[in-house]
């Protein structure tokens, strides 16, 4: 079964369950998405569904994109994203909406985390820093040693240190669906979702079920 949607993060709030307990929810405006292409193992070597989201002006797209959408008589769409699927039950030109998810389902949400700029090791990797007292000067947020000495005589690639933080693709796994509003194309998941408000998010079927 293929399940997936492209959407935008609206923001967080809280709702109450039937016992009166407050649940933190992230609201995602998801879909409606068009199935723009279906990838088949015979033809493409793998099976996946390409979805398109958010109508836009034709002049914002390239001729190639417009031609790709025109194959199935689809409107100009701003975002095209592929979702891997084990079995595909949709055909090109279909519209998929939030009603494919039900309350209680587990989903994974992919987003782009907020950019934090160039950050030191203390903030980026929770390094402990140096001592705050005992005569320490300029060592409070120092990273310490990055590597061994003469052997190997260099810093291995991928070692943790200061650098650019955030603005990465992040997946929040196993979030529970607590709200489905087909009329307004809204999906509510328990807990936080990566990224800023209005950021593009992909909602997929949970992998950890």
């Amino acid at each position, binding site marked *: 079964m293929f399940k997936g949607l492209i959407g935008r993060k*609206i*923001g967080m*709030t*809280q*709702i*109450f369950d039937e*016992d*009166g307990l*407050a649940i933190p*929810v992230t*609201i995602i*405006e998801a879909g409606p998405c068009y199935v723009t292409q279906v990838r088949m193992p015979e033809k493409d070597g793998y099976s996946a569904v390409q979805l398109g989201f958010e109508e836009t002006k034709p002049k914002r797209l390239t001729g190639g994109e417009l031609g790709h959408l025109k194959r199935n008589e689809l409107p100009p769409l701003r975002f095209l994203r592929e979702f891997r699927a084990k079995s595909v039950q949709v055909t090109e030109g279909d519209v998929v909406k939030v009603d494919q998810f039900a309350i209680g389902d587990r989903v994974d949400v992919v987003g782009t985390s907020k950019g934090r700029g160039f950050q030191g090791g203390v903030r980026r990797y929770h390094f402990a820093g140096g001592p705050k007292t005992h005569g320490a000067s300029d060592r409070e947020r120092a990273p310490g040693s990055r590597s061994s000495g003469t052997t190997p005589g260099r810093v291995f690639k991928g070692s943790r240190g200061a650098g650019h933080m955030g603005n990465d693709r992040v997946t929040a796994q196993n979030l529970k669906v607590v*709200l489905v*509003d087909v009329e*307004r194309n*809204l999906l*509510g998941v328990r807990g936080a979702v990566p990224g800023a*408000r*209005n950021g593009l998010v992909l909602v997929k079927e949970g992998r950890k079920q």
Partner: protein
Amino acid sequence: MNQETLKAIETPENPNIPDLLPGDAVSVHVKIKEGDRVRIQEFKGTVLYMHNAGSNSTFTVRRVASNGIGVERTFLRNSPRVDKVVVERHSQIRRARLYYLRTRTGKSARLKQKFN
């Protein structure tokens, strides 16, 4: 536009909770679930402070229980567990957060009533 979308999802305000002020003597009617029965328990006390934050707004009520032990309870304004709130009297107060009541007992813990 996003804020409006969120508003539409949040629980609507409880019409049985009037506007509260710190220092109000209130009686909070709380729904309590016992098995499959729901009964209502009253919690009487003074509003210590409000936390106004949209759908996450709360108010804290202080009550001096037996043996002079103070009990404070914080209620979510929009919670369906709060059945209703009755304001019994308003008080003359000069600050928004009446933390000083915690250190006081007996006569000095009283607040002057405000009539309007």
